[in-house]
């Protein structure tokens, strides 16, 4: 009996590890998104193959849980983008799941069903899955991207390029607003993937580069990025001033006037490759000496270094000047743009969720919130909630839910501000104590118990509930929650 339990626990841990390993890479780098949505480079494709091989090692084929089947669907769903025979594998794994999946898991399975139907050329099935995905409540942004590209492809098939362009622009705006920056480049490349004409292929890429310039990125750095994206297109696009595509002819003219672009510079080539492969730390190491030394590449290096530093995460601790006495943050170390500021917010939120509230983080939030920049409503809402400003947090939660739909984070945050125990119960049912959603599971449980106690609930019921929760995790969600649970017992 004990051995059966141990084996079951081992399977459970393996499945969770594999899921976390895969989804961490999926949502923190654009590599997988480039494979499943956009146009991957050879390097990216190999990286994904290696990653999936590692994920497969972490999963076990003999386990038959829904989580395990879901992992197989994810792996086959990615692989089928470059190995056609995996479509049937993906479909058989999906059929083996006999539970209704909700949230991101549900939208992800629907999105793979849509892709399977597309890859098999089954128009009717594709249409029905597209409808289901469109009606799905709370679809993940990357799954919504697949649906958007499906709509774009259909518009293009009907020669309605205006509609296709409008769909792309609307979705790009949505991605900006929802903080899903990592999907923007893959979606622009995905637009090129579904487009049939050369002019259509470059449309989204040129629009994205224009947005970057308007946003404040250096012109030359953006041009480098655009060239790297265009190099992914098959067949290759000739960048000449005589090109029939106006934006490409303009790009060629700009390149011709910029004599500093010297393709014979081997060091520069290596840097470009590193930037393309998103290896920003290595690129910075090579760029720094080039930017300091006087040479024909100095200006390029300064521009690219500036751009790379903007997209490379800055450690939270480096973003603040701290008091010598109290060690608490007293001012921002410098001015940050919106993207970096948003990353800093997210780091602070993640740290608070992991280690609990502290005076340092509270002060950091106050300083970040003083910065007047374009930040996601969801991020602002959660930040205000964590420092106890429930009235302001509530306003931002309501706006974020209206814009992005209901997610566990938003529903739980709003429920915390409005003391909504029913919503908290729904959060408990949508999360679990041992995976990446555990913070919300324990927060919902502790809040319901606190509100129950405040309303004069039975102490024995509270003690019993806490004892039952201990059966799920003896640490009751970790240091940030255990003290709150213990306070309820005395």
């Amino acid at each position, binding site marked *: 009996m004990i051995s059966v339990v141990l084996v079951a626990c081992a399977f459970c841990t393996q499945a969770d590890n594999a899921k976390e390993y895969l989804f961490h890479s999926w949502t923190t780098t654009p590599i997988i998104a480039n494979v499943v949505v956009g146009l991957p480079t050879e390097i990216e494709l190999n990286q994904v193959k290696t990653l999936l091989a590692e994920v497969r090692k972490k999963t076990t084929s003999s386990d038959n849980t829904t989580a395990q089947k879901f992992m197989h669907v994810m792996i086959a769903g990615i692989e089928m983008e470059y190995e056609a025979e995996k479509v049937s594998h993906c479909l058989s794994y999906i059929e083996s799941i006999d539970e209704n999946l909700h949230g991101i898991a549900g939208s992800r399975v629907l999105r793979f069903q849509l892709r399977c139907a597309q890859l098999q050329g089954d128009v009717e099935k594709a249409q029905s899955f597209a409808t289901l995905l469109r009606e799905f409540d709370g679809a993940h942004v990357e799954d919504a991207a697949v649906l958007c590209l499906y709509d774009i492809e259909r518009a293009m098939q009907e020669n309605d390029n205006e509609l296709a362009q409008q769909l792309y622009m609307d979705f790009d705006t949505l991605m900006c607003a929802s903080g899903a920056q990592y999907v923007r480049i893959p979606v622009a490349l995905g637009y090129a993937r579904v487009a049939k004409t050369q002019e259509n292929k470059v449309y989204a890429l040129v629009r994205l580069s224009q947005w970057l310039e308007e946003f404040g990125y250096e012109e030359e750095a953006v041009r480098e990025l655009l060239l790297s994206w265009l190099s992914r297109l098959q067949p290759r696009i000739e960048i000449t001033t005589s090109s029939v595509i106006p934006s490409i002819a303009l790009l060629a003219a700009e390149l011709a006037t910029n004599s500093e672009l010297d393709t014979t510079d081997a060091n520069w080539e290596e840097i470009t490759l590193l930037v393309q492969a998103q290896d920003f730390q290595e690129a910075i190491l090579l760029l720094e000496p080039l930017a300091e030394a006087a040479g024909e590449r100095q200006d390029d290096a300064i521009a690219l270094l500036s751009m790379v530093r903007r997209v490379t995460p800055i450690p939270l601790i480096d973003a603040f000047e701290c008091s010598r006495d109290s060690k608490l943050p007293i001012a921002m170390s410098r001015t940050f743009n919106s993207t970096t500021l948003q990353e800093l917010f997210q780091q602070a939120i993640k740290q608070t969720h992991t280690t609990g509230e502290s005076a340092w983080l509270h002060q950091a939030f106050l300083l970040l919130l003083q910065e007047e920049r374009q930040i996601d409503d969801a991020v602002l809402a959660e930040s205000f909630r964590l420092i106890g400003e429930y009235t302001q947090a509530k306003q931002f939660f309501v706006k974020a839910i209206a814009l992005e739909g209901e997610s566990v984070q938003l529903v739980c945050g709003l429920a915390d501000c409005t003391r909504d125990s029913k919503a908290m119960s729904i959060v408990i049912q949508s999360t679990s104590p041992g995976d990446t959603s555990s913070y919300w599971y324990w927060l919902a*449980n502790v809040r*319901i118990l606190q509100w129950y106690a405040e*309303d004069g609930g039975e102490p*024995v*019921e509270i003690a*019993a*509930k806490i*004892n039952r929760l201990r*059966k799920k995790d003896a640490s009751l969600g970790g240091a940030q929650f255990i003290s709150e649970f213990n306070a309820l017992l005395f």
Partner: protein
Amino acid sequence: MIDVVFLLLVYFMVATEFKTAEESFPMDLPLRQGGTLAALDNEPLVILVESSGVQASDVSIRLVGPWDPVVSLQGLSAFLTSNQVSLISMDGLFAQTHPIRIQPTVNTRWEHAVSAYNVVVDANYTNITLDDPS
């Protein structure tokens, strides 16, 4: 002299105003009725009951959840009694009012399901549901 003193006494008796003591007035405030008590998210304890024969002892019990394994009616009785929380013993897992569902299978004999029900009643639990066979 005595006349003057007498007159002064009469004057002060008439002019003096004694301060009345503060009184407390009871108020009949209504009992708290507005607002609903935040409800705990109490998942019911599900007890699966299966019959392996026709004898009273031919019954097997299984608990759904992360609980210590229980196989017999005696074990169930011990589990429920030892894990009942009270003001004296706060180590238990279930309050008397915790929802408990007894779930027989289609092959479970009626007397076995009722036996399980009776064990739960004997353990002083009050919120019990006997599910349809599944």
